[in-house]
């Protein structure tokens, strides 16, 4: 009884189970967590979606679960950063039990990691995921027999249909509460003999350790550095060493290889072949071409592959502009109406100006582009979830390689079209630090979603609607091409070095689930809106304040008396405009703008554009909201240009606009992205390099673009 009370008083300690979720890449680990706990982790169809460990908490039958979602790893190696994260976690951290997620449709390959997990003395439960897909492919796995054969519970589950999830958790609890039973992983006769020899020696000397002696023996034979380090300081090492050398030699001889790791890999492989032969029944009648192979024969065709990819991208930007433009007028009209309605209820002129010209104009200018953003995000989500991403990496590797980039750089680079922050994170899939840094440096050249509003604004203002979509495509592609050239320059100068190998899994094509796409797009869109409502609103207020103060009463009185003198309405309007302009120019923001104007003058920017670029360092959406505030303050009396697009096409010359787009394309991404960049690059100095690098290129390219455009037009 007493105990019961204690349990209730302190349930967290009493029944807490910490689970490490391990599996090869792209077997649905994150998706499994999502269906177990209703969490919303990001899910995609390529290896490397989860790049860092994430913890998810949930309760089930009085048990408190902490599930740690570890990045996918093919084997216990430290090849990439993500694999290192997983390996280090499994070896060094405290957790109670491992759930090994396995792709049922590809059991043989997945068991390679499983067999390595089984040699650790940890409790393991195997989740045979994607069992629904396996059924469709006529693959049946005898889960009970498999549990018996390898001595750990194997449960059929499907993260997609949520089948078998409760059985899995029950099995985890049962396993956790049972006493440790040894998994039955057996090696070939010669290896087992050597293991027995070492175990016998350790037993004889009553060597104390948390791990089992068998485990230590296997680790020693596999050349595990940590185990070596631990035993190296023990007195028994002197005698153990010759035994080990002899044992390794025997095993290598047996496998006809000079590499003990290779020998062990072969050992695991033959064990796995045995398991697969016993438990798996595949009713596949004569290997026909699978759907994936059929699609691949078109999509990665040596000749048509790249044109098809370019066509997809072009269509995406066409749709982004065409469909995105439809609701734009309504949103614009709504904010104009909203501003007028709210403005009418506020008697105080300053407050009204703050609310209407500051917040509503600034936020409205950003919200206007939500439809475009949604379409772009849908496109990227489709690319991520179908499996096409890896195909493009395959197609482009040859091309990328010429520019000193790795084919897999493509994945962070494409992610960069959505947002630079996850792109910087996903660069972790690159093994080599040099490759990774190089990729980090050019991710910014891939125009992120936040820059889209600026492009749409300028493309809409200066080009016919039927051309604007093409212009968007050209902007994105030329940004990307420029990035490639920049990569080549960096590779030849700062990041010299040998090329990394390119070995990458091509996942099966999957039909994207509507729910998944909807969820991803919704999350990202809500984030955009949230940013508009908080960060952008605050920035708009700041911009408004800086552009309204200090008040210059003398100037106002001067002009107002002039306005009263004239009788003609038109003259009055002109004078009012002049007053607004003069007021704006002597405001704080005007002073900053005027101060920096000479720097930007060679690019053809007026002080308003200069200011917008500077506020854009905080976030690219702020460029639009700043322009919104500046032009609505300066010119809202003018009836012709009541929309921002109109104001811009009226006040900014074509050549300046082109130069402006070029700067936006190249210069530093937002503040948040810069922070993540610095973290991923590993040192603050890289941030300064990036700042200098992008600023110089942006300035030079914009200067060239401005003068060339002037010459042509």
């Amino acid at each position: 009884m007493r105990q019961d009370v204690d349990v209730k008083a302190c349930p967290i300690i009493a029944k807490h189970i910490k689970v490490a979720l391990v599996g090869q890449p792209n077997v649905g680990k994150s998706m499994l967590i999502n269906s177990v706990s209703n969490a919303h982790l990001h899910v995609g169809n390529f290896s490397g979606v989860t790049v860092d460990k994430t913890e998810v908490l949930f309760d089930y039958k009085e048990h408190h679960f902490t599930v740690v979602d570890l990045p996918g790893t093919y084997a216990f190696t430290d090849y990439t950063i993500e694999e290192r994260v997983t390996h280090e976690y499994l070896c060094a951290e405290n957790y109670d039990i491992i759930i090994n997620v396995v792709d049922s449709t590809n059991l043989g390959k997945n068991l390679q990691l499983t067999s390595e997990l089984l040699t650790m003395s940890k409790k393991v439960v195997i989740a045979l995921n994607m069992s629904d897909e396996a059924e469709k492919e006529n693959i049946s796995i005898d889960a009970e027999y498999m549990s018996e054969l390898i001595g750990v519970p194997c449960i059929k589950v499907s993260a997609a249909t949520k089948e078998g999830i409760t059985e899995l958790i029950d099995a985890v609890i049962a396993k956790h509460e049972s006493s440790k039973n040894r998994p039955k992983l057996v090696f070939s006769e010669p290896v087992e003999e050597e293991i027995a020899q070492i175990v016998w020696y350790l037993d004889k000397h009553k060597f104390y350790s948390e791990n089992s002696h068998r485990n230590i023996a296997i680790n020693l034979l596999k050349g595990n550095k940590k185990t070596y380090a631990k035993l190296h300081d023990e007195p028994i090492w002197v005698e153990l060493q010759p035994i080990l050398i002899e044992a390794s030699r025997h095993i290598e001889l047996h496998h006809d290889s000079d590499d003990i790791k290779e020998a062990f890999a072969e050992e695991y492989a033959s064990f796995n072949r045995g398991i697969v032969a016993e438990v798996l029944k595949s009713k596949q009648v004569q290997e026909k071409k699978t759907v994936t192979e059929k699609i691949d024969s078109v999509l990665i065709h040596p000749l048509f592959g790249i044109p098809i990819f370019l066509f997809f991208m072009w269509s995406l930007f066409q749709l982004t502009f065409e469909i995105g433009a439809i609701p734009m007028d309504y949103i614009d009209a709504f904010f104009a109406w909203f501003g007028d309605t709210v403005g009418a209820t506020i008697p105080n002129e300053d407050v009204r100006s703050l609310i209407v010209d500051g917040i509503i104009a600034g936020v409205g200018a950003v919200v206007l582009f939500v439809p475009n953003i949604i379409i772009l995000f849908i496109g990227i989500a489709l690319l991520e979830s179908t499996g096409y991403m890896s195909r493009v990496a395959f197609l482009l590797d040859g091309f990328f390689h010429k520019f000193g980039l790795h084919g897999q750089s493509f994945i962070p680079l494409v992610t960069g079209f959505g947002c630079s922050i996850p792109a910087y994170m996903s660069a972790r899939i690159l093994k080599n630090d040099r490759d990774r840094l190089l990729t980090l440096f050019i991710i910014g050249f891939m125009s992120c979603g936040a820059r889209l509003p600026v492009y749409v604004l300028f493309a809409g203002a200066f080009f016919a609607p039927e051309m604007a979509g093409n212009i968007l495509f050209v902007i994105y592609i030329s940004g990307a091409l420029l990035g490639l050239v920049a990569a080549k320059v960096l590779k030849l100068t700062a990041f010299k070095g040998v090329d990394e190998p390119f070995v990458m899994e091509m996942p099966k094509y999957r039909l994207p689930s509507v729910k998944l796409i909807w969820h991803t797009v919704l999350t990202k869109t809500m984030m955009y809106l949230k940013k508009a409502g908080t960060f952008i609103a605050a920035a708009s207020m700041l911009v408004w304040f800086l552009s309204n103060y200090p008040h210059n009463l003398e100037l106002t009185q001067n002009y107002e008396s002039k306005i009263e003198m004239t009788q003609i309405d038109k003259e009055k309007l002109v004078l009012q405009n002049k007053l607004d302009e003069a007021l704006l120019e002597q405001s704080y923001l005007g002073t900053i703008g005027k101060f920096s104007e000479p720097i930007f003058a060679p690019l053809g920017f007026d002080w308003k554009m200069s200011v917008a670029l500077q506020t854009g360092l905080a976030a690219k959406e702020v460029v639009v909201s700043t322009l919104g505030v500046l032009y609505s303050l300066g010119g809202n009396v003018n009836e012709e240009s009541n929309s921002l697009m109109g104001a811009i096409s009226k006040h900014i010359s074509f050549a300046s606009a082109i130069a402006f787009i070029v700067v936006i394309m190249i210069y530093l991404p937002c503040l948040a992205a810069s922070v993540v960049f610095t973290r991923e690059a590993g040192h603050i100095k890289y941030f300064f390099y990036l700042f200098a690098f992008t600023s110089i290129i942006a300035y030079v390219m914009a200067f060239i673009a401005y003068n060339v455009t002037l010459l042509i037009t």
Partner: protein
Amino acid sequence: MKTLLDCHKSCKVKVIKLNTTGDLKQRLISFGIMKEAIIEVLEHAPAKSTIEIKVGKMRIALRGGEAKLIEVEMI
């Protein structure tokens, strides 16, 4: 000596030896590309810069340079 790079599209081969060491060897092994493994060549990118192969049920893309290190025999 025949390497994986010499293989034509849709031919099946058996791996004899991996002529590499260290990380790359580990990587290939962890993808199931090891002695005795059966490989099918699926697709070539232009100029064989990259090739797509099938090991077991897994499709893998690798560069021509890496394929050259994998010694194979026809089956």
